[in-house]
Each structure stands twice: as structure tokens, then as C-alpha cells.
């Protein structure tokens, strides 16, 4: 199939992407932490975009999946000595079950989009309160991972290794979402996003595909949760289970371009380093200024490019092509 959807042709972005993400290997330790954080957000945005963008179901409950991944692998590791390399899949399985259940619960009653977003916010809040009050999960203090420092326990001495691990996550997630986009699942999900009635009429089992999208997105998000827990060496509710992180994921994706393959890559790639830089340079004198800048950017993007930076670029490219086409016709 020829590529005309809001995706750039495959090779160029991959090269740029690789160049940008490989550069920090030559950088100082402060920069590599920012690079890791950026990649983590790219990964989480790509995961969220499968249900929030491609399938168009605005889920704000992804903190549940992040927490499911982080807490499951951490508990299995601290309580039973099971390596997070296995624990991450247990977390993903748990998140998938939760995600599919939420989708089933919401969509079998055909909740309109806004109600769905509100329901997922409510569930995320409940999850946060529950985790903050259960002693086994460390309540609001959280859990600290014992330092073992062995790769077999998903712990590394060097940040470069963490960097490589999350980079592999990102490559796998982007490849998965590219593949999804043009195959049956992606076509069906985009059909559901665009027009549910019409999707029913051409034989799309709408409920089942929404559940599938939630399942995939939840599983990927949980794997990111395990990574984040291993990287920070602790889990606690505010970082892993509050909806702040989801709002950040949604915001970064919207700025990049919801529902496109590259939008959730571009958004965090630009904004996470910019936010960190702002926080470092102005955080002392103007605390919270990066949030202000995020907010303003969001307003600007929604006003001038509701389909995000990638969508705007794609439209510019089409307009340019069209003008060139007109010129060719005129000179003939």
C-alpha cells in the first residue's frame, strides 16, 4: 500500500531518530539521564497512542498500567527473589487484564468519549488511593529495591546500559505501532476512531477491537513501568500511580500528533529535553516555569495544528506537492 496517511516515509525518520538517540552516548552523565527520561516518555507515548490515538479512545487511566508493571515486578523481586526480567511480563499480564476489563466495562454500555475519559480518571484516582494505603505495597512511602547491581536482576552499574534497554523498548514499540497501523488491527482501530456506526456496518466487531487496543497499550505501558522502577530503584505512588504522569503522556502525544506513528515520538523528543533544560536553568528562580511553557505550547498547538506537529508537517508536504503538481500541469 502506498503511504499517504499522516506518516512520513519510513526511512528518513528512522535515520534522524537513530542519530538523535545515539548522540547522548558521547555525552556527560547529566545528559544521559535526560536522554533516558526522553526515551521513556517516547515509549510511554507510543504505547498510549495505540488506544488514545490510533483507536481514538481517550484513556486517562494509564497510571494504573504503569503502576501494575512497576509494583508487580518489584514485589515479585523483593518478596520472592524473582528477576524483574520475568516479573515485567507478570506485570504486563496484570495490566492487560485490568485494561481489557476497563474497556469492556466502559464500551459495552457505549459510553461517549468524554464519559470514558472521566471513568478512566476516576479509576486511576481510585488506584492511586488504594496503592497509597496498602502496606504490602509500601503505602505512600513506596518500596525500595535492594541493590544487587547484576544484569540478571535487571540492574546495571552504568546508565548507558539502561539507555540501551529503553532504546530497545522504543524501537520495538515503534515497530509494533508501524506494523499495526497498516494491518487489519490498525485499519479496524482507525475505522472505529473515525466513525463507529460505519465501522459496525462493514463488519468491525467494535467492542472487541477497543478491548484489544486497551490490552496492547496496557501491556506495553506496564513494561515501561518495570523499566522505570528498575531505573529509579524504587517505586512510590506519586511517581507511578498519580494521573500527573498520564497527563504528561497525553500532552506530549497531542503536541507531537495523536494517532500518527511518529507524533508520540516527536512530541517527547522535543519537549522532554526542553522541559528539563528549562527546569535546570530557570527552576531556581522560577519554579514550575517548564509547566507553564508546556501549557502554552499545548494551547498554541491545539489552536494552529490540532493534529499535532506531525500532522501539520504532513499537511505542509501535501500542499507543497499539490502546488508542484499544479505548476507541472501549467507548464505542460
Amino acid at each position: 500500500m502506498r503511504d499517504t496517511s499522516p506518516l512520513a516515509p519510513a526511512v528518513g525518520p528512522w535515520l534522524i531518530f537513530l542519530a538523535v538517540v545515539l548522540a547522548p552516548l558521547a555525552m556527560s552523565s547529566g545528559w544521559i539521564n535526560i536522554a533516558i527520561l526522553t526515551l521513556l516518555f517516547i515509549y510511554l507515548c507510543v504505547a498510549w497512542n495505540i488506544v488514545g490515538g490510533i483507536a481514538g479512545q481517550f484513556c486517562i487511566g494509564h497510571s494504573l498500567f504503569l503502576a501494575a508493571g512497576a509494583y508487580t515486578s518489584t514485589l515479585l523481586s523483593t518478596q520472592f527473589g524473582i528477576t524483574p526480567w520475568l516479573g515485567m511480563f507478570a506485570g504486563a499480564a496484570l495490566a492487560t487484564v485490568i485494561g481489557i476489563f476497563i474497556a469492556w466495562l466502559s464500551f459495552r454500555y457505549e459510553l461517549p468519549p468524554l464519559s470514558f475519559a472521566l471513568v478512566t480518571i476516576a479509576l486511576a484516582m481510585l488506584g492511586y488511593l488504594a496503592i497509597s494505603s496498602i502496606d504490602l505495597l509500601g503505602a505512600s512511602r513506596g518500596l525500595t529495591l535492594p541493590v544487587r547491581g547484576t544484569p540478571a536482576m535487571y540492574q546495571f552499574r552504568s546508565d548507558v546500559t539502561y539507555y540501551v534497554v529503553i532504546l530497545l523498548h522504543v524501537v520495538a514499540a515503534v515497530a509494533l505501532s508501524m506494523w499495526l497501523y497498516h494491518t487489519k488491527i490498525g485499519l479496524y482501530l482507525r475505522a472505529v476512531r473515525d466513525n463507529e456506526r460505519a465501522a459496525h456496518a462493514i463488519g468491525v466487531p467494535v467492542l472487541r477491537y477497543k478491548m484489544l487496543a486497551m490490552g496492547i497499550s496496557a501491556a506495553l505501558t506496564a513494561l515501561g513501568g518495570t523499566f522505570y522502577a528498575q531505573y529509579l530503584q524504587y517505586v512510590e505512588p506519586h511517581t507511578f500511580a498519580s494521573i500527573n504522569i498520564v497527563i504528561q503522556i497525553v500532552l506530549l502525544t497531542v503536541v507531537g500528533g495523536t494517532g500518527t506513528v511518529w507524533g508520540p515520538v516527536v512530541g517527547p523528543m522535543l519537549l522532554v529535553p526542553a522541559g528539563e533544560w528549562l527546569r535546570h536553568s530557570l527552576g531556581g528562580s522560577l519554579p514550575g516555569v517548564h509547566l507553564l511553557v508546556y501549557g502554552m505550547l499545548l494551547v498554541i498547538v491545539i489552536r494552529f495544528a490540532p493534529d499535532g506537529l506531525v500532522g501539520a508537517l504532513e499537511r505542509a508536504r501535501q500542499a507543497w506537492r499539490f502546488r508542484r503538481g499544479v505548476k507541472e500541469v501549467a507548464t505542460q
Partner: protein
Amino acid sequence: MLSARDVSVQFGGLRAVDKVSLDVMRGEIVGLIGPNGAGKTTFFQAVSGFVKTTSGEVRFCGERIDGVAPERICRLGLTRTFQIVEVFPSLTVRETLTAAALVRLPLAEARRIAVSTAELVRLGGKLDLTCRQLTLPDQKALEIGKAMATQPRMILLDEVMAGLRPSETDEVVRLIRDLRDRGITFLVVEHNMDVIMGLSDRIAVMGTGRKIVEGRPDDVVRDPKVIEIYLGAEFELA
């Protein structure tokens, strides 16, 4: 092929469809007409699974389909178009038709069917335009194309001619005849009397939720009951 028995649909206190029975044979084009509010579209929605029937039964190729989800009905080979076009704005024509063909086929074959279906509904040159870039007549053609690509045995057409110019209407009529010759059965709801008279093998007339008359087009137009519901008081004034 399609058989509706005493189908009723009740919305609160309003009986939109009242014990309507209708049979459509294989390879037929049956027209369903009636003034606004006669319950044609509701009957249609009930048959295609978009509205629940209150009583009665609908069978398609012998299988009960009342109360069955529309996507299952589509899988059985009965699909519909919408009165107000329902396209996928951000999908291209190619993607739309591929998605429709996927109901029965693996991806590679669905892509081939998408191309041949686009040719069939005269959208061959517009495969890579998104649906929101299409003109209304093209969107109507795509509406039929979408139904075609699911490779149905029967299509329910809901006022596909509405909003089209006469030349465009002729195109659509030719297309429907073509498709009938390929063995597809049609039930057509239509306001445009010229079109429906020329197109249908048989016509059923609905008025206030009931089926009033059914017969050959020539007989139906001369039926006094039909003249009454269509022209009513105005006819007497004249």
C-alpha cells in the same frame, strides 16, 4: 433471501414500525417508499441490526437476524449504506475499501478487492484521497463501494440518491443494475419516485408505520391508497 415477519419497533409511546412483513427474493431489486415519517428508515435499521425490534422476526438466508449485532449481520452477507453518508474522514478510499473487504478476506486479498471495487464504483483515480477530500457524489459512491467490498449477498440502500444531480443519479442507477446482474439482491429506500419506479422489480409502500401496498411499480402508482397517502388533501383540492 430476506424475510421479515410482523416486525414492530416501538420507541416509548411511538410505534414507528407496526407489524411489517416483507420478503425479498434472490436477485431482486425491491423498492420501499412512503412519505416522511412512514417508518421506512426505522424498518431498515431494524433489519440491519442498528435498532432492536420490539416483536416479530427477521430471517436472512434462513437465519434469525433480529437482535443480532450489525457486524455479525454483515458477516452473514447483508450490509447497508447510510442515508447521510458515513465515511471514515481520515482514511483514504483505498484504506476504507480494504477495511471493508477484511470482513471476509486476509489483508493481501482485501487490498486487491479494494482496488477492483474502487474501479467498479468509479473511484479508481481517487484511491489515495482521504474521504474528507471527496465530493458528495464521490462519498455516495464510496458508501456503495464500502458495502460492495464486504462482498455481500444483499445490500440495503438508504436513500443513496438524496442530494445528487440527475446525471449523477443515472450513474448510481446504472451501478445498481450492474451489481444486480452480478447476483446481488437489493432493498432500496428512496424518495425519488422516477428513480425507484424505473429501478425496482417490486415496490412496497409504507404509511404511518404500516405496509399499505405491495406490488409491481405500474400497479402501485395507480393504487388509490398510495395516491391518498402521498397526495392526500392536496389531491382532493385539485
